């Protein structure tokens, strides 16, 4: 919540010589964040961010109190002068009877007055306009002025237009139609707080906005000045669901002090008398079923010092609290603090009191200390994040660019049956409704979003999500990539995956015909299924691998092989086989013939002929041509037998 106010308005309640800049700087350090200070004539305008737990600071008086406390604790003279709100004399007559529902409204204060509608004085108009409220006429302006000074919204009805003996507070009903004072029609969802007149017409949407049928006009002669302290949760719900976010609604959805309601009434009456020729014509109505409970919090000095990290003197601590409106005293080794009614919404426990002391003492006055490491904790170097980073770096240096795509996808981009999809109940748009179970559609979209690029190499490591029978979904870290390039070759992608896994210390990578059909390959580490390479087009290939299996297998373990002392013998062997025969099966068969074959690899393929490069080596002695010839015969006969191979 932001609050804008004039320095001169603030200083009506804080007597100090401190400059606006100084006040702004110190408030930021110890209280609210002053986001800007702007010069306006001879005056300054503060732009202040107030956190939602401190609605009491959405007021001139609240800020004046904090300002005085902060200045004093920085050794700058300052005095908070709080006005006294004393109820005026009134006639005994009651013009409207209000029937409250204590479940809906904590307190209602109201009074009827005769007024004269006209322009407000310039001072009022200026102050309101700087605070972001457009001046309308004096009768309306008073309601806003009171809200700004005290931090409690107020409302005013045209008493004649209201034309009722009773005002009944009840819940709004689903389907009821209202027209707010900005001439907009709304259909209630039920559960709002409304006021109803004798004829059953809704005349107010409490805490949020007045209605067109009872609003003050230029012809208004009599008003009902009306302050309602409402159930904050109902206000939040109604304001959000109807989409009416007035200043009043934003305040009323926080815990406002009901004691302020009466002060607001008294202050408003005074203002009507001053600027609207106001005259009270009824008794003051004060219905107050839900009284604020008294709250006391105790905290020991030991605890204060332990949490803050330095020793604070008891007197200093006590002053911090009393300056903020607490009734505090020291008893033995602790502080006993009675919480002011405007703070009961945010002060609950010892730590809340410590915060008040610490911030007024000044966080900037505390030293910077690293937390001591008291225990020896071993550090795991090659954790999952190490492997993830290493993988990303490898892909980067192989020309891939990393993308981050959204975890949620549209129905169109979701793969598989929708009843298995993890569905977002309240999506922002239909583009983000299902938690994805594959990264590929997102990556393909990224490719198509970059139409001007002929060559695209992208990858992503992210979670995919699968429903479980009971409990949270399985989140599976997944590595996927897409390559778009003219005449792309399957083996380039196979190579990327092989080299990547090799770099992660994984040796037993296998490629098999694709499980799901199509053109491509299924990738395995031994029997663990990793994922797929899919050839989608002559210029488009994707791959998707279960990165968690990779993480389980990745290792920094090092092995050293013995160097061969004796020279190898190499030869090439051309085999004619049926075209469908897998190279890997042939190599496995060749290798199986003798332990002296240290390597067999495919050198060339031409039509039905595959040429293998074979390396023979004996680690014990020099190999002879005769020995390798014997092995070759074994290879030839086994390939003939098992694969009906012929030889040239």
């Amino acid at each position, binding site marked *: 919540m932001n609050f804008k106010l004039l320095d001169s308005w603030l200083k009506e309640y804080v007597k100090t010589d401190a400059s606006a800049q100084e006040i*702004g*700087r110190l408030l*930021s350090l*110890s209280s609210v964040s*002053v986001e*800007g200070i702007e010069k306006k004539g001879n005056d300054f305008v503060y732009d202040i961010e107030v956190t939602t*737990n*401190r609605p009491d600071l959405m007021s001139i008086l609240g800020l004046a109190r904090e300002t005085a406390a902060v200045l004093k604790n920085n050794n700058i003279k300052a005095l908070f002068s709080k006005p006294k709100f004393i109820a005026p004399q009134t006639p005994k007559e009651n013009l409207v009877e209000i029937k409250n529902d204590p479940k809906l409204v904590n307190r209602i204060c109201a009074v009827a007055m005769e007024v004269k509608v006209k322009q407000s004085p310039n001072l009022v108009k200026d102050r309101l306009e700087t605070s972001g409220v457009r001046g309308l006429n004096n009768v309306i302006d008073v309601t806003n002025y009171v809200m700004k000074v005290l931090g409690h919204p107020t409302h005013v009805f045209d008493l004649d237009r209201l034309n009722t003996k009773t005002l009944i507070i009840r819940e709004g009903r689903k389907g009821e139609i209202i027209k707010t004072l900005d001439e907009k029609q709304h259909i209630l969802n039920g559960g709002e707080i409304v006021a109803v007149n004798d004829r059953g017409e809704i005349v107010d949407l409490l805490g949020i906005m007045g209605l067109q049928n009872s609003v003050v006009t230029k012809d208004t002669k009599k008003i009902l000045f009306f302050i309602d302290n409402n159930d904050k949760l109902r206000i*939040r719900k109604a304001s*959000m669901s109807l989409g009416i976010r007035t200043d009043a609604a934003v305040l009323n959805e926080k815990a406002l002090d009901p004691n302020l309601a009466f002060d607001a009434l008294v202050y408003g009456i005074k203002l009507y008398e001053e600027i609207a020729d106001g005259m009270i014509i009824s008794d003051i109505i004060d219905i107050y079923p839900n009284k604020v409970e008294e709250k006391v919090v105790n905290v020991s000095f030991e605890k204060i010092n332990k*949490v803050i*990290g*330095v020793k604070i003197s008891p007197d200093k601590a006590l002053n911090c609290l009393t300056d903020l409106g607490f009734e505090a005293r020291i008893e033995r080794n602790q502080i006993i603090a009675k919480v002011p009614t405007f703070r009961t919404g945010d002060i609950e*426990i010892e*730590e809340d009191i*410590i*915060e008040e002391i610490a*911030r007024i003492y000044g*966080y900037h006055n*505390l*030293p*910077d*200390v*690293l*937390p001591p490491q*008291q225990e020896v904790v071993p*550090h795991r170097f090659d954790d*999952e*994040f190490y492997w993830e*980073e290493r993988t*990303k*770096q490898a*892909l*980067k*240096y*192989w*020309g*891939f*660019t*990393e*993308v*981050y*795509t*959204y*975890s*949620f996808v549209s129905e169109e981009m979701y793969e598989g049956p929708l009843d298995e999809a993890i569905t*977002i*109940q*309240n*999506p*922002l748009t239909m583009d983000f409704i299902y938690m994805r179970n594959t990264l590929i559609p997102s990556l393909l979209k990224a490719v198509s*979003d*970059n139409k001007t*690029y002929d060559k*695209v*190499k992208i990858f992503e490591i992210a*979670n995919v*999500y699968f429903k479980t029978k009971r409990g*949270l979904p399985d*989140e599976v870290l997944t590595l996927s990539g897409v390559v778009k390039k003219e005449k792309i070759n399957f083996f380039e992608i196979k190579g990327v995956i092989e080299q990547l896994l090799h770099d992660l210390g994984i040796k037993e990578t296998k490629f098999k015909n694709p499980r799901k059909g199509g053109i491509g390959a299924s990738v395995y580490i031994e029997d663990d299924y990793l994922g797929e390479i899919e050839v989608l087009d002559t210029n488009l290939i994707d791959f998707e691998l279960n990165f968690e299996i990779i993480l389980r297998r990745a290792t920094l373990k090092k092995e050293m092989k013995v160097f061969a002392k004796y020279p190898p013998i190499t030869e090439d062997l051309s085999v004619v086989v049926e075209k469908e025969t897998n190279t890997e099966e042939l190599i496995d068969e060749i290798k199986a013939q003798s332990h002296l074959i240290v390597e067999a690899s495919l050198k060339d393929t031409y039509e039905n002929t595959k040429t293998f490069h074979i390396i023979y080596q004996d680690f014990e002695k020099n190999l002879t041509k005769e020995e390798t010839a014997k092995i070759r015969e074994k290879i030839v006969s086994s390939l003939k037998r098992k694969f009906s191979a012929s030889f040239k």
Partner: protein
Amino acid sequence: MEENLLSIKNAALSLILDAKDDKMLEEIKLQFLGRSGQLTLAIKEITKVPVEERKEIGILANEVKQTIEEALNEQEKILSKKRKQIIFERIDVTNPSVKPPLGHLHLVTQAIEEISAIFSKIGFERVRYPEVEWDWYSFGALNFPQNHPARDEWETFFIKESPHEKYGAMLLTPHTSSGQIREMERKKPPIRMLNIAKTYRRQSDISHVPMFHQFEGLVVDKDIAITHLKGTLDYFVRSFFGKDRKSRIRPYHFQFTEPSFEVDVSCGVCNGKGCKVCKAGWLELGGAGMVHPNVLRAGKIDPNEYSGFAFGFGPERCMMMKEGLKIEDLRILYSNNLDFLEQF
């Protein structure tokens, strides 16, 4: 014999001078000095020379061998020099190079890697916890009241699943703070956690994206005080943004910390004097605070024995603040526009 040696020498020298490259030189060397080279064979013949002439012939043969070897070396040097001259004369160094492939890591990854390294040095252990979580971990255990606005369906994404009887609704983590409770369940103090993860909120405009990242630090140990949080933040700020930058904490409000702070970094553009980029010399970094006793209790840690601090910042924001990147619309980070990604 003498004549033979001299003619071998002359033949060799003229061939050597004519040699155009190293390969030819190598052949010449073999032709004369190799195992069955002309000079080698001639030297073998020396045994057939009468004894009294043998010494003189021997000396001559050695001279011839030396001369040929020197000529070979000399010519090799000349050739090498020439070769280099040719290369250097021909190079236009402004022509395009042949580059090894080089891709790009996303800005978010780059930020995460830096942040992880910085915190690893002071003993923070990186962890990963669910992105799809129960209400309990995201709100309930973090001291959010039942009707807190963050629990509204206007702010948090909920999953269409029946709620857990103990842990409540299923949702997408709106902050990394859910990791605080997970971490407390996983291990006992001392805790020094760094949880970097995707987070989700129902918002999308030029300064908000529905999916973004956070990094969450959590320290729980005996006697952890506000001064320790200040020290840790100061260490991070000066490591990440530069040693001359300053940090400060200001009062703020969060449900799961008490006291709560907002953390600022001194502006790198104006060095804290105040400029257009910053607010009076400071830039907002994110939130922090002392772990609320109710949160410790929810994590089964006794708040009378232990205390802690936590902070949560956005790596996206940190990276932009560090580099002074002015990204007009934050959504471009996740738009996967290659024109953007390939700049970093």
